């Protein structure tokens, strides 16, 4: 693994483009900027082509003989299947409005990280092979041939895009480079060119139901640890159920919440909230993943992985589905799930059993976001909250890209935070809501071998946090995404040491006054509550 440069070194970014034109500047695959190639066994599990041992650093990527033909046919197929792709190939005017909107460009200065140029990497091949002007005029019309070095460049730069869609917000035509990245990754997957940090979790999810490969008994075991901790802190023994038929609600959350800090505290938050409400719900070990790493390989695999949620809801006979805090999980659930695996006509219109609120906005998918659910509870005064318990926290909120730009959930989490914390501060308006900056590790880039890339990509987000740290003394970065909870701690440690990361429902659980609880002296992390220091 390469050594990641120190922050002061990494932050000296040079934005001057090279002297040579981009077509004449072949990509140099730098260590620390890419993830390991997929292992053959994972591709085999997923029934993906060309499983073999390979490394991006190799000269020879062991491609099938007719790789060019495969790619061009794949390209043609996708142009015919997706209007977005076809239109986006044709109408970019290279105005450059998107150029400086990408966190990877801001953090690296590499012009091929400008969304427009990232897309041109593919567009140029499209022009060269599918347009008359490109065929005749070649380079003059911005066209080029699909060579081995172009292919490597695709792989390198399309795995330096977190599909965050920030560029799309600013483009006058809504050209979404994430959409182009998705197509490019599908094409690369036709040749077995993926990263193992994506195909590994995807294979796990396919066979075991979740990315982390937690087997059913391990899920139960992990939750039991949390239940013990909850009992220590609150004196309350919670007994959740698993794969229980006839429950009213199926709860699905990303498996990251069951596995590592600080996600586990968020999971404890769910457990405590649901217990306090007396909710008739169940976890599933089969559909134990809300996230979808298939989304970072191909539409088809994404659909295969997503199918488990409805299938399990049907098998268990629940009425509706509640979804936990996750970014890309919600982009998929909001924009794709019903189309792929619906109609969910075996479910009922989601209705909060506590407040009676009917979630009209989920009347077709029958799946409600937990922030919507909890905000509704608070609005109806159904929770007893003591925000003072979070008084040692100065909280800011990071909108994750997917829930921001693929869903638009902005007010619900803010409303919750303001009701469970007394100190909430917004970051710079240019870095929140739909203009939010990616954590830099989304869409399957949260590995450890590409740390430099992640720290570069995380720079804009971290910098906006640093700003509120300096201004207001913020010490807690809240979010509603499992990848954020996994990725942001490393980014904070690197750029803004001393800032911790939390899910919103951890904050809720800390403030939640539960029936029959003992006097709490610590929060879920075992840290003394303010005013309780030394009382333990």
């Amino acid at each position, binding site marked *: 693994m390469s050594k990641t440069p120190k922050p002061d070194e990494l*932050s000296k*970014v040079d*934005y*001057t483009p090279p002297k040579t034109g981009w077509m004449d500047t072949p990509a140099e695959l730098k260590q620390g900027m890419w993830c390991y190639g997929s292992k053959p066994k994972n591709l085999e599990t997923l029934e993906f082509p060309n499983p073999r041992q390979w490394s991006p650093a190799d000269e020879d990527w062991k491609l099938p003989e007719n790789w060019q033909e495969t790619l061009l046919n794949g390209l043609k197929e996708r142009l015919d*299947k*997706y*209007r*977005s*792709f076809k*239109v*986006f190939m*044709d109408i970019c005017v*290279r*105005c450059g*409005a998107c*150029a400086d909107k990408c966190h990877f460009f*801001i953090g690296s200065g590499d*012009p091929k990280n400008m969304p427009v*140029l990232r897309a041109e990497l593919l567009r140029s091949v499209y022009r060269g092979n599918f347009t008359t002007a490109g065929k005749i005029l070649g380079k*003059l*019309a*911005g066209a080029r041939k699909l060579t081995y070095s172009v292919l490597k460049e695709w792989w390198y730069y399309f795995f330096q895009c977190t599909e965050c869609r920030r560029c*799309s917000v*600013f483009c006058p*035509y*809504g050209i979404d480079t994430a959409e182009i990245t998705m197509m490019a990754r599908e094409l690369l997957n036709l040749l077995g060119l993926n990263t193992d940090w994506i195909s590994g979790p995807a294979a796990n999810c*396919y066979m075991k*139901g979740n990315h982390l490969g937690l087997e*059913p*008994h391990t899920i139960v075991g992990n939750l039991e640890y949390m239940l013990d901790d909850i009992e220590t802190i609150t004196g309350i023994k919670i007994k959740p159920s698993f*794969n229980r*038929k006839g429950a009213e609600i199926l709860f699905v959350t990303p498996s990251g919440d069951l596995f590592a800090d600080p996600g586990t505290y968020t999971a404890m938050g769910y457990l405590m909230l649901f217990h306090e409400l007396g909710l008739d719900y169940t976890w599933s070990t*089969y559909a134990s993943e809300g996230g979808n790493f298939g989304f970072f390989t191909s539409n088809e695999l994404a659909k295969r992985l997503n*199918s488990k949620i409805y*299938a399990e809801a049907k098998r268990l006979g629940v009425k509706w589905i509640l979804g936990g805090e996750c970014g890309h999980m919600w982009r998929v659930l*909001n*924009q*794709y799930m019903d*189309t792929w695996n619906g109609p969910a006509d075996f479910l009922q219109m989601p209705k909060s059993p506590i407040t009676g*609120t009917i979630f*009209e*906005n*989920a*009347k*077709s998918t029958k*799946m409600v976001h937990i922030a919507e659910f909890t905000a509704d509870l608070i*609005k109806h005064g159904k929770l007893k909250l003591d925000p003072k318990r979070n008084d040692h926290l100065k909280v800011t909120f990071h909108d994750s890209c997917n829930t921001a*730009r*693929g*869903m*638009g*959930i902005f*007010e*619900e989490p803010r409303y919750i935070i303001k009701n469970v914390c007394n100190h909430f501060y917004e970051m*710079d308006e240019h870095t929140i809501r*739909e203009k939010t900056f990616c954590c830099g590790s989304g869409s399957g880039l949260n590995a450890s071998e590409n740390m430099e890339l992640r720290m570069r990509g995380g*720079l804009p987000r971290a*910098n*906006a946090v640093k*700003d509120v740290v300096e201004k207001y003394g913020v010490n807690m970065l809240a979010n509603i995404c499992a990848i954020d909870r996994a990725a942001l701690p490393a980014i904070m440690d690197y750029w803004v040491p001393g800032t911790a990361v939390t899910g919103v429902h951890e904050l809720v659980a800390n403030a939640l006054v539960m029936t029959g609880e003992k006097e709490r002296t610590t929060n879920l992390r075992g840290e003394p509550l303010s005013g309780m220091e030394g009382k333990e």
Partner: protein
Amino acid sequence: MNAILSLIAVIVLVLIALLGVKTANLHFLFGIAVPYTAIAVFLIGVISRVLKWGRSPVPFCIPTTCGQQKSLPWIKQSKLDNPSTTSGVIGRMLLEVLLFRSLFSNTTFELRKGPKLAYGSTRWLWLGGLAFHWSFFIVLIRHLRLFTEPVPSCLNKLEVLDGFLQIGAPGLLISGVVLLLAVTYLFLRRVFIPEVRYISLAADYFPLFLILSIALSGIIMRYFTKVDIVGVKALTMGLVSFNAAIPEGISVVFYIHLFLVSALLAYIPFSKIMHLGGVLLSPTRNMPNNSRMERHINPWNYPVHVHTYEEYENDFREKMKQAGIPVEKE
């Protein structure tokens, strides 16, 4: 390099028209045949291009959501930026097409020592783009007076409005000046902003030079050489009534102007200028964010291989039983 090549291409076009009319006397070709061909290429090209896009389906509902979703009744939805209904979408598209709303919210950033990233709003591209498109549009509309008899009064009013500064004779029309300035600005930013220069292709400079020279030749005709406007109108009316003849005595500048316009028309369907049609078809902007409310249908959705619960239980039955998880088959 790309800019110079594009400039040369436009100069060549000018020379073709100049020599063709002045030296070779091909008035019929440049006055009638070329414009007709250009219009045919334009119409057929644009229509087939749009149909081609239209043939590809929109399998998923993928709007880019730039504001609060529709959720609980007491949470204010951002109806324009995150529309959930058709009227919201129409509003969003209108603001986008008429006022370039996305460009309005454009930002710049600066990396200061610290490191500290600072962001700010910038409206230059928005202003330049808006000025360019609107002035171009008004100039285009003004030209309708050459193709109508009698000239509708609204066109006359527009011209009065356009010339409200009342400078010189013939009166100076603002739209032409704005167009010239805006094209120049758009060109200069391509040359002077390093990132934009880096991404610019010949296909970006060429239309700018073409439009610039069209505007210049128009201005020369109107203010300097005093083209025989009666002759021009006779020709244009002939063209629209499919009864074209070449009147005597129209200066060669007019033929150059007409040839450049023809070149632009014929070029449109093959170029990025098609963005004017494409923007309306962009799924990230023209769809409502209602995919949790209404099921969106993918016409080519097909069944996929899934790992069923049954297979899963077969893999883990014993472990599940030991952990006290209910199973289907004992």
